[in-house]
């Protein structure tokens, strides 16, 4: 087996696996690299006669002689290293066989060979058959890349702790020598920026280039760290091939190329042991031989070479070599899909240590080689189904939602903007009326409510995330929460639906149908593995997004209580079925609530109208009322708007408003790249605004602002700066934030009795005047009872009537009862049934 001459096919491993010429990508389908096909009966085995293009001697370094016996020495790409101490490991991800299928080189037209030959003649350059890869150059280039590549601007979390001004990959090699995990992940974009040609080769001929890289890395590594001990040789795992594609755009031209696609794991199979090498032993003379898998099949030797007995060889399972393999089904992620179509799925094979790396539900980026395998021919049939099976052999997995666990900032690589797009967005941002433009582009079918739309717009942008964990306060909330309340049928739900459709990570739930469990997380037993799995609910799923909760008032108290933590601390604690954890839920809440009496009662405060605990209400930055304004001018504009909705053509509407896609990108861009900070003037303005707010209240003996209001003012100002694509929060931002907050307060925290803005309605649930009045009534009642002299017990109804008769102002039953309760609290009287007793 180790004799090169006995296996002429091996030498040509690379020949068959490679498409004929770099240009003729369309022909790739025929390629048998992945092929589990046996040789066609009709194709004569003329391969032996085919010319061996590359010269093995070119690759044979003197040190090669000490290779382990099972490694094929003749192949230029085998896993021999300078150091024989470390065993090479097969890479099934680069093709389940690393040997040449021994068929059909005869069909090669001479032209291609000629081209190669001429190149050879030119510069004595030998390339791997069918490619333009010269192993020596390629190796050299990659070593140079490893030794020299520096990326000072790197912000990948993988590179945390590395010195960015030193060659990046040399540091990684050092890490390998320390940690002992023989895997080197290489970012393809680095390769590209270093050497575009090398990158092109890597993408086009991964099957040839990656083993070359492996070789290069190992040479380099064992030169540097001759004493390190590794489990097996270092394997190079490229990722982030810039040819990142969405699953939908994969086409026949991608076959056998390296691709990176994103998707979601939907199913994983059990581990499949795949035989790599079979061990046969002769039953007669105990002579043993090894046979490697050839296109998915093992050719059982018919004759023992030692004793010439026929059919005496038996397979010894225990001594055969197997590799792990797992089938993974990946579905395209919902964001990539055109509307109205179903998601595509792709089969992915993971090998060796990549097995069980991912689980159903994970969102991942996969880098791998795209394969197409013809359907296996049935020997009894003359016809073949003309369909190929396609799959991807994984080289590298990357979980896209991994970062969320690390609690790092927004995923920046999630959305890539083209230059032109950024230009368009920046142009838009430079317009002075960008804020108004954007807010009017928001839900154009909903009429007016400009301030509400502006509020929601700021919510979409969010504030700047600040970290105060060093000073002991933890993270400050950057998300803006908004509550809409108002009459039914004022298109609140429609607004919510719109927002939910606009943001990538939005969730829409209705208070009526959701339980605390559905909002937070629940533990589920996987029916197959009996494993407990934490399933996340709407709030966790909308991390970094917006959670739209309709019918907020219909939510049960226990469910609502969950929101307390989420809306201020932005985390979610779970203690269930032995799983105790704290999940990030940095979500903005956009809630809509209906008044309790089905119609908004303008004589009552917000709290009274919607009956929500004020502890929860105070966590909303903005509370808007959506009421019918009931004035003629408004009616006319509304009518015009609605009628226009029904007769304007699609194009007219498009002209009027910004495209939803542009709006989406604008928001995504701002959220990712803009992190405004307060400047000096703005901070002064904020301070003034806060002091002013407190002053207004103190004049009337109430508190009209709390630190929470200041915080939300800051958030709103930051969000407004983001809208302008500005890195600084300036006074105009503060002004707008102030205006918006005042508007919202005016609507929701106006005391219906006095007409003043009174923040205590939201913070304590009762306005100051109401509290004062309650006291007055109680005092009046007490005085009346005292005036009646020593009567230990009184009729409830009579007392009520008396009080009503005495007082000038109308006294309702509620007020009377409240007064009684107040007196009872003072231990002045008790109420039992229909009688009132003095104590």
């Amino acid at each position, binding site marked *: 087996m180790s004799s090169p001459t006995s296996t002429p096919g091996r030498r040509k491993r690379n020949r068959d696996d490679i498409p004929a010429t770099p240009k*003729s990508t369309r*022909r790739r*389908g*025929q390629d*048998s690299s992945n*092929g589990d096909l046996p040789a*066609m009966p*009709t*194709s004569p085995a003329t391969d032996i006669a085919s010319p061996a293009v590359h010269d093995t001697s070119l690759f044979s370094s003197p040190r090669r002689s000490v290779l382990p016996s099972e490694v094929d020495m003749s192949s230029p790409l085998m896993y021999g290293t300078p150091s024989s101490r470390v065993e090479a490991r097969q890479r099934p991800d680069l093709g389940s066989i690393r040997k040449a299928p021994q068929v*059909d080189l005869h*069909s090669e037209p001479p032209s291609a060979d000629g081209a190669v030959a001429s190149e050879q003649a030119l510069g004595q350059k030998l390339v791997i058959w069918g490619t333009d890869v010269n192993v020596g150059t390629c190796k050299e280039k990659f070593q140079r890349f490893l030794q020299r590549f520096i990326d000072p601007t790197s912000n990948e979390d993988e590179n945390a702790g590395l010195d960015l001004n030193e060659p990046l990959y040399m540091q990684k090699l050092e890490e390998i020598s320390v940690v002992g995990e023989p895997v080197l992940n290489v970012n393809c974009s680095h390769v590209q920026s270093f050497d575009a040609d090398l990158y092109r080769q890597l993408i086009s001929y991964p099957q040839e280039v990656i083993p070359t890289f492996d070789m290069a890395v190992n040479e380099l590594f064992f030169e540097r760290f001759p004493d390190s001990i590794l489990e097996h040789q270092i394997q190079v795992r490229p990722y982030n091939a810039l040819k990142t594609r969405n699953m939908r755009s994969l*086409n*026949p031209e991608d*076959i056998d190329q390296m691709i990176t696609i994103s998707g979601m794991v*939907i*199913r994983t199979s059990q581990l499949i042991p795949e035989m790599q090498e079979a061990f046969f032993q002769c039953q007669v003379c105990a002579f043993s031989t090894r046979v490697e898998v050839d296109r998915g099949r093992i050719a059982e030797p018919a004759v023992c070479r030692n004793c010439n007995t026929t059919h005496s060889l038996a397979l010894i399972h225990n001594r055969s070599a197997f590799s792990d393999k797992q*089938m993974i089904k990946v579905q395209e992620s*919902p964001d990539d*899909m*055109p*509307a*109205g*179509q*179903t998601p*595509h799925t*792709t089969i992915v094979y993971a090998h060796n240590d990549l097995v069980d790396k991912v689980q*159903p*539900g994970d969102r991942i980026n996969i880098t791998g080689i795209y394969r*197409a395998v013809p359907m*296996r021919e*049935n020997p009894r049939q*003359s*016809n*073949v*189904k*003309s*369909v190929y*099976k396609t799959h991807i052999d994984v080289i590298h997995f990357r979980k896209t939602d991994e970062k969320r666990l690390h609690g790092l900032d927004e995923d920046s690589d999630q959305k890539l903007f083209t230059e032109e797009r950024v230009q368009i967005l920046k142009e838009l941002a430079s317009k002075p009326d960008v804020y108004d433009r954007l807010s009017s582009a928001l839900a154009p*079918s909903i*009429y007016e409510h400009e301030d509400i739309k502006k509020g929601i717009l700021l919510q979409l942008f969010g504030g700047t995330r600040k970290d105060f964990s060093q000073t002991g306060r933890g993270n400050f909330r950057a998300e803006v929460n908004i509550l809409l309340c108002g009459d039914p*049928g*004022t*298109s609140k739900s*429609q607004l919510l*639906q*719109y927002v939910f*459709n606009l943001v990538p990570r939005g969730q829409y739930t*209705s208070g009526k149908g959701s339980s605390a469990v559905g909002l937070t997380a629940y533990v589920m037993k996987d029916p197959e593995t009996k494993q407990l799995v934490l399933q996340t609910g709407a709030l966790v799923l909308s991390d970094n997004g917006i959670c739209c909760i309709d019918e907020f008032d219909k939510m049960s108290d226990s469910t609502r209580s969950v929101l307390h933590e989420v809306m201020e601390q932005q985390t979610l604690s779970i203690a269930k079925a032995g799983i105790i954890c704290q999940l990030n839920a940095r979500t903005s809440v956009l809630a809509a609530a209906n008044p309790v009496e089905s119609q908004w009662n303008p004589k009552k405060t917000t709290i009274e109208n919607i009956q929500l605990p004020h502890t929860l209400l105070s966590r909303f930055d903005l509370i808007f009322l959506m009421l*019918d304004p*009931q004035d*003629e001018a408004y*009616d*006319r504009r509304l*009518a*015009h708007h*609605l009628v*226009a*909705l*029904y*007769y304007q053509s699609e194009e007219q509407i498009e002209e009027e408003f910004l495209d939803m896609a542009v709006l989406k990108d604008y928001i995504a861009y701002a959220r990712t790249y803009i992190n405004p900070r307060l400047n000096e003037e703005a901070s002064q303005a904020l301070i003034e605004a806060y002091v002013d707010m407190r002053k207004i209240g103190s004049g009337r003996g109430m508190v009209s602002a709390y630190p929470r209001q200041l915080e939300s003012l800051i958030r709103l100002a930051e969000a407004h700066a983001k809208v302008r694509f500005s890195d600084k929060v300036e006074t105009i931002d503060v002004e707008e934030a102030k205006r918006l907050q005042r508007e919202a307060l005016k609507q929701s925290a106006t005391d219906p009795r006095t007409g003043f803005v009174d923040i205590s309605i939201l913070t304590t649930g009762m306005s100051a005047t109401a509290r004062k009045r309650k006291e007055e009534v109680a005092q009046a009642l007490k005085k009346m009872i005292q005036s009646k002299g020593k009567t230990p017990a009184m009729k409830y109804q009579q007392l009520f009537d008396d009080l009503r008769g005495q007082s000038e102002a109308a006294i309702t039953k509620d007020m009377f009862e409240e007064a009684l309760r107040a007196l009872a609290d003072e231990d002045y009287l008790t109420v039992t049934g229909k009688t009132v007793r003095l104590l």
Partner: protein
Amino acid sequence: MPSSHDWINKPLGVVEAMFAQSNSNPEWEAKVLEYFKGQLKEKESHSWVPSLNDVPLHYLKPNSLVKFRCLVQDMFDPEFYMGVYETVDPSTKANVLRCGKYKDVTECGVDLNSRNTVTAERQTFYCVPIPGESPWAKEISFLSAARVVPSTSYVPSRQKRSYEEDDDDMDTQPQKQREPHTETPQIQPHGNGDSKRQETEAPSSQTTTPSDCSSHLDLNFPLPGERGPACLVKVYEGLDSFKLNDTLEIYGILSVNPVLTVLGEENMETPEEQRAHDPPASLVPRLHMLYARPLQHNNPLLPSAPTEDQSAFVSSFLVEMASVRAELLAYLTHVLLGDGLAAEYLLLHLISDVYTRRDVLPLGKFTLNLSGCPLNSYTERLYQIVQQLVPCSYRLSMSLHTMNSMRLVPKKDYVANRLVSGALQLARNTSLFLDETQLEQGQLDSSGVRNITALGNLISWQKVDYDFSYHQMEFPCNINVLVTSEGRSLLPSDCQVPLQPQVTPPNMEEYLTTIHMAQFTSQINKFRVYLSLARTLDYSISDEVTKAVEDDFVDMRKDDPQSVTAEDLHRMLVVARLLSLSLGQTTLSRDGWMRAKHIDMLRRSRTEQQKSLNGNEP
């Protein structure tokens, strides 16, 4: 019939000839499509193509051109196939280039390592007959198709049956004689049509028996109790133009090669997946699409192609429109026990259509809640009458049991890798009849709650959130929902009309049957055309009327701002639109607006009346 029917009988021959001529010039593919499109454009030629809907599969010639009226139920992953491959003749050792397009299997002796192989991509759609297609629509399309010569072996057999059962068809060449009739749909008395239907039912039920035997094979029809062939359609061109739930008329090459099911024994797929994706070709034939026509409607009485003769048809019918409307209104009034207002609203509902969407808001939907329906099978009879009028309908009896057990929302089955259909996967403009009178008190379980939510979403947003297990995906739809209930429905609706019966027939069943029987089929057919046609008309509002409507709205609000809200204006605009269309008017007139206002006023006074009545109840 012209003898050059090779393009129907042997379309693959045509394809191969073109391929041979092309010398691997890729333009031949476009030429093939052009050719078939051209053939089908010829007058009536599309009616020569046998339909998979009407002709049982075993009467159809394999590899012939057939058509299929269907709904795209699921879209499978794209697959790569050998577009061009080379075969080696074992005797002569000569290499021949062959075309793999429009075929499932290759010729023998493929040279897998040939450099001339071209890999191409195609996608498979799982198509089912249009769910809820009314029996009359099936029947008429069958009858009109059967009269023209279908180039299948089905004809003789049909004739044989005809000798036995039908004296009419004694003629040995009935097709030719009958041909003129097909131009204008002739209406048979209803009974006759029924017997024909039964006759055609017989063979088709034979084809379905095997599937009944092998009950493990679920053909995945959206509605329970559906029958007909499901089909795997291989799509080569314009993949992006097709969407899930599109209704199409597909012209393609039928492939029923039994090899298809035998192959693929060594797959990584689960048995479920294999069953879903490679069902036996005898049950689920393959169709290689050459041409697909999106269907605006599936009413066989209307010309389907938007050509000149359609506009001619429309303009000729427009003259009659008002009179047909009056007749239909009278008919519906009888059906609704003498309630003219409810009949008016029902008529408007039947021609409603989501004609556009503004961001999330669907415009033009008009869900009607008919409350106060008499119990005891009245709703069932009402549905039967609606079914007679519209080409597609389904009655969902909202009993507690069905709500808890039925699957309304389609769900992705990851094991079989297919979209398991649900009752809400319906074609556009299907009439969904929700019978809330069947609902009794009791406990809804979680799936029941989900179903009710799905119905609510459907009504409010005209969308269904398909369940993809890890996430949900929103599919917009266009379904006319009619809710019948005793009191006000628990589901939202655009418009509630309490039924006020003017007559109380002692025997409801008999009463409705007599009304129904009193209508001539010709009359009913007119109604059918009317309803489908009114929906397709264009509509606009002039600036002048816009102004008037605005003024009107402001005035109404002036008197009592509480009484008229934006919601009411929305509804009145829809009512005005439908009212105009129902009269064949394509612009809103002042008169039309006043009428819309008037009937809405009547309706509201009725609901208020109802409310105060209920209020008085203890």
